[in-house]
Every structure is written in structure tokens, then in C-alpha cells.
């Protein structure tokens, strides 16, 4: 893919995620999606920029704020909508729901609803690759809040000590659930925590997809070469609250607006228009096309049946 077509593709993928998330909100209000959702509008450059730096046989673990990563890794949108609606055609047969978009065949090994739980699993997958003589790497995405839980330090420690190819990606959106990072954490730049484990810690503008992609590609190379893990801190922001019921009233006035000026989709779109790669009119056409696809896939998902108790029994034990 040429550099230009890759960046147009990034725009398409970010738009898909954005419009998917907005559709999720809408379907929630219609009573078709239940429980809770943790949407990622504003953070799309991280999932798209990072995952496009991976090979198909690399491993990933993600979190409950993982719709974007799952779509980017290739889970069909219809299967994602069906999962959210609890249907048997969902990517996890309707038993997982919003927080567990998983596709083991695509290397997306798990999506975790427990903060910090995905890091050891990614570490194990990368260690497994190392033991089996493969240069596959694992990327694990997690929030700023996870850097205060034990598994973060434990996983960085082992990955560094054994030179395991893991790329640890913090999506620092400034809030751990409803609480600002500054209230719970003594440093603003979480990348400094890499120092304690003797690995590179890199601060990245998480709204700039070129920067995200370049930083992840470098960390992936380091992992493949057997040089060990890296910690990347993506400075980003979620435009919505923590979860569906959170109106995010704790945000200081003007903060959301300042970050919306750095909307990753707008930034890349302006750049593509200015460079003559894709005009703003063409971008509008692209958005409309994607919107139609999103609507159509949501409709198809609605038609699918719910799973039965008999069907899900076999998911408990394999043997």
C-alpha cells in the first residue's frame, strides 16, 4: 500500500469506529443494547495507528473500551453489533457483550473487564512465541488507571527481565473511571514508569495517527528483534464519559472543547485535504458511505436470534 492510500485507509477505519460507537449509543437508547458500554470516541487514532503496525500473526489484548481495536483488527462490524445485542451471531456468540470483543483466530486473545488483567495474558502470549522460536509480538492496550495496579508493574518487570516482545500501550485519557489522574497518581507522564523496569518509555501524541503508527512500529521492531518490551504512553482523550451512565460532569469547563479541536479524525482529514490526497468533499462522501454500511450492519444484526442456554453450556468446559 502506498503511504497515501494507507493514510486514506486510516481515515476510513477511524470513521468506521466513530460512526459505530455513535450507532451503539443510538441502539442503547432504542433498548437494543443493554447493561453498559465504554465508548472510545476521540481515541481512534490509537487503535488504528497501532494495530496497522502489526502483522496478522501478532497477538493483542484489549480492554472493556475495546470496540475500536476489535473493529480495526478485523472483527466484522455485524458480529460486533450482534454481540452488543446479545445475539448468537455475535463475535462471542452473545455471551460476552460489550466488554469482551475477542477473536482468537485473528490474534485478539482477549478483552478484559478487570483493569490490568490483559497485561499478563499478552506477556504470556509473547513469551510463548519466544519459547516456540517465533518473532511474533504481543501488544496490550490499557488505560492510565491500569498503571496503578500490580499486574502493570509485574508484567513490565518480567517482560524486561526475560526480554519478551511485548508492546505495552497506555491510552492515557486523563481519567481513571470518574477520577482525574492527578488525584490518584504522582506523575503526569506515565511513560516515566518504564524507567523503573529498564525499558524505553515513550510519550506519544495519541491524536496524531502518524505519530502513533511510527512509535508502535518502532516498538514492534524492537520486540521482534528480541530486544524486549517497550512502554508507549498515548496522550489521548475520550469525548464521552467513562461508561454509558456517566455524563462526565467532573471535567473542567472547556477541556472537552480543547480536545475536540484535536479530534484525530479531523486532524488527519485536514492533513489529507491539504496534501491533495482526499478532498473534504470526498471525505464527506466517504462518511456517508460508511454511515450507510453501519446502519445496514446494525439492521442485519438485529435480525439474528438470541443464543439458548443449551448453546452456551459447551462454552464453560472444553473437555
Amino acid at each position, binding site marked *: 500500500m502506498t503511504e497515501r492510500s494507507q493514510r486514506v485507509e486510516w481515515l476510513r477505519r477511524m470513521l468506521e469506529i466513530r460512526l459505530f460507537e455513535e450507532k451503539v449509543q443510538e441502539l442503547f437508547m432504542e433498548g437494543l443494547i443493554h447493561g453498559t458500554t465504554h465508548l472510545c470516541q476521540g481515541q481512534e487514532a490509537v487503535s488504528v495507528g497501532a494495530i496497522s503496525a502489526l502483522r496478522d500473526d501478532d*497477538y493483542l*489484548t484489549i480492554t472493556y473500551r475495546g470496540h475500536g481495536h476489535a473493529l480495526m483488527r478485523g472483527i466484522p462490524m455485524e458480529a460486533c453489533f450482534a454481540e452488543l445485542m446479545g445475539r448468537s451471531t*455475535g*463475535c*462471542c*456468540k*452473545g*455471551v*460476552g457483550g460489550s466488554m*469482551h470483543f*475477542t*477473536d*482468537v*483466530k485473528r490474534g485478539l*486473545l*482477549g478483552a*478484559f473487564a*478487570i483493569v*490490568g*488483567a490483559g*497485561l*499478563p*495474558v*499478552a*506477556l*504470556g*502470549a*509473547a*513469551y*510463548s*512465541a519466544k*519459547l*516456540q522460536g517465533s518473532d511474533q509480538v*504481543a501488544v496490550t492496550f490499557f488505560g492510565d488507571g491500569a498503571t496503578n495496579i*500490580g*499486574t502493570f508493574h*509485574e*508484567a513490565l*518487570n*518480567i517482560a524486561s*527481565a526475560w526480554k519478551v516482545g511485548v508492546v505495552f500501550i497506555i491510552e492515557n485519557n486523563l481519567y481513571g473511571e470518574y477520577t482525574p489522574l492527578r488525584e490518584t497518581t504522582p506523575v503526569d507522564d506515565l511513560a516515566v514508569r518504564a524507567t523503573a523496569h529498564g525499558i524505553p518509555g515513550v510519550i506519544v501524541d495519541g491524536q496524531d495517527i502518524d505519530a502513533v503508527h511510527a512509535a508502535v512500529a518502532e516498538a514492534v521492531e524492537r520486540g521482534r528483534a528480541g530486544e524486549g518490551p517497550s512502554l508507549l504512553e498515548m496522550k489521548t482523550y475520550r469525548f464521552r464519559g467513562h461508561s454509558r451512565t456517566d455524563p462526565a460532569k467532573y471535567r473542567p469547563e472547556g477541556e472537552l472543547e480543547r480536545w475536540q479541536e484535536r479530534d484525530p479524525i479531523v486532524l488527519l482529514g485536514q492533513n489529507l485535504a491539504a496534501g491533495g490526497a482526499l478532498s473534504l468533499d470526498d471525505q464527506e462522501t466517504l462518511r456517508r458511505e460508511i454511515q450507510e454500511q453501519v446502519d445496514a450492519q446494525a439492521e442485519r444484526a438485529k435480525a439474528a436470534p438470541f443464543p439458548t442456554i443449551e448453546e*452456551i453450556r*459447551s*462454552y*464453560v*468446559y*472444553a*473437555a
Partner: protein
Amino acid sequence: MSTQLEPASEARDVEIVEMTYREAVNAALVDEMTADPTVYLLGEDVANDGGVFKTNAGLPEQFPGRVKNTPICENTFIGMAIGMSVTGLRPVVEIMFSDFLPTAGDAVIEELPKFRFMTGGQCTLPVTVRSIGGATGRFGTQHSATGESWFMAFPGLIVASAGTPAGAYSVLRAAIRHGDPVLFFEHKGLYGRRGPVVRSDEAIAEIGRAAVVRQGSDVTILATLLMVDRALQAAEQLSADGVEAEVVDLRFMRPLDLDTVRTSVNKTGRLVIAEEQVHAGGWGATILSQLWLNGVTLAAPPRVVGLPDDLLMPYSPPLEDELVPSPAAIAAAVKEFG
């Protein structure tokens, strides 16, 4: 449903070897690591001089690169084992003291049992967690729990144990080759105990099946881990007095083998539960509940010999000896039936 005897008493073309419980654990590890090159052992000090309890003697030399010392972080290295298991390996994790397992609460309760389910059955997790527990070693309050019943309420897990060398060999081999996560509880007070072991593939245990380790017609003693050994000693004392006890090693806390227990108590009419744990919330209480729910009637109310409900395990040796049920205490419970 037939009950499993050990060792096989019928004439069989298999060699029966006398070995310790420790050697039986070692033999199971050697045989599974030999049979399957994807089996790895990891945990704290597992590769140092045979491991803390010497169960891993010779393994690092025999299987270079497959026995790995970890840092002290149970939650993370069990989580790692999950990542290894979904990418083609079959990890065995050693937990040096069962009292350390709660630090891995997320990995053991939230991840191991739920991982496959939440993905709609996309993967299997062939992970074995060997957890070493139990009192009598003068290890004090935080190094003496058996932990055997802590995780029995979680669908998605297999919870296993062994009370004899033969059981240690058979159940551990079955655990390692099983396709779902298994917590296998060992007892450090048993490592030096000797017994006959059938060392062959034929001896691999059936998951979820209890073992009748001594036959008798007068009373059933249902036990796990060290209590199996002590129940067998109690049975010898009782036999001298003309009472023949049947001793059942429950082996599996999840799934519970109600059939074997029912068959035994239908024969004997009397049941003693011998457990190295408080009765509340454990397998003993659950077995009694299941018997009751299934309409099994006994000739006399069952008896329970276990740890006191209002104390914790002390260090002081005479007190530890007093608290952990002895063969005499188990025999006394049987004699209460009159």
C-alpha cells in the same frame, strides 16, 4: 458406575513401584513433559535444586529451557500461563504455598474459569496450577492452609487433589493433559509418605472421579489430602477392633463425585467426613448437602472431623498437632457410631 481401586488389584501387566508422594509428583511431571513437548513448568524457585519441596528434582536438566523460575507475582504468572495456553503451550504453574493463591485472585477466579466462556468457546485453557498446601510443617498461620475448597464454587475450573502417592501420580497426569484449567492441590505433609504407584499411562485418573483407597463394609470415611493418609491409619486401628472402614479419597472438589460417595454410603450406612479445613463452605458441607438433596439416607447422622471453626492455625508445634485431626481422632469419630 464402578469405583476405582488403586493400585489395580487384578493381575495386570504393569509394574507397581513403591515411591513417595514427592517422587510420584515428580514422576507425573517427567512423564507428561516427556509425552508432550508443549508442557512447561513455571513458578517461584521451581528450577532451583528441585524446587522448595524437591518435587522438581532433575527436571531442569532433563528438560532444558522448560522449567522457569518466576519473580514473586502469582497473579501475573498465572495470567501468563493463560496467554501461553491460548497460543499453543500447556503450562504447569507451581504455587509454593496455597496461602499465596489469594494474591492471584483475579487470575484464578476471574480469568481462568471465565476466559473460554466469555469468548463463546473460542479457545481452550490447558493450564494446571499445582498448589502446595496443608499443615503439620510448623509453617505457621500464613503457610499452612490446604486451600482445597476455596475455588470449588467456580464453574469453569476443575479442582483436584490427591491423598496418596498413587493419586498424586494419576491425578496430576490427568490434570496436565486435560483441556480445561485444573487447580491441583498437593499436601506438603504427604511428600515423604510412601506407597505403591502404577507408573503407566493406564493409571491416568479420570477427571471428576473419587477413588476408594480402602474397602470396608462398616463405615465410609471420606477425606482428601493428608486426611486420606490419616483415615487409612485410623482404618487399620479400627480393623484391629473389628470395624472395617471404607476410605474414599474424594480427589475432586469440582466436579464432586457424588456417585462414588453414594455407592459407598449405601453399602456402609455411616459416613465420617475428615477434612483439614473448617467445615463451613467446603467440600464436606457440600457433599452432605448433595446427599441430603438426593435423598440418600444414612443409618446414623454423619460425623465431621475437621479444623475448629473459631480458631486459626498456630505455629506452636503441640498446638498444631492438637488441631489437625489425627488418626485417633478420626477413629474416635467412627467409634461414636457405637
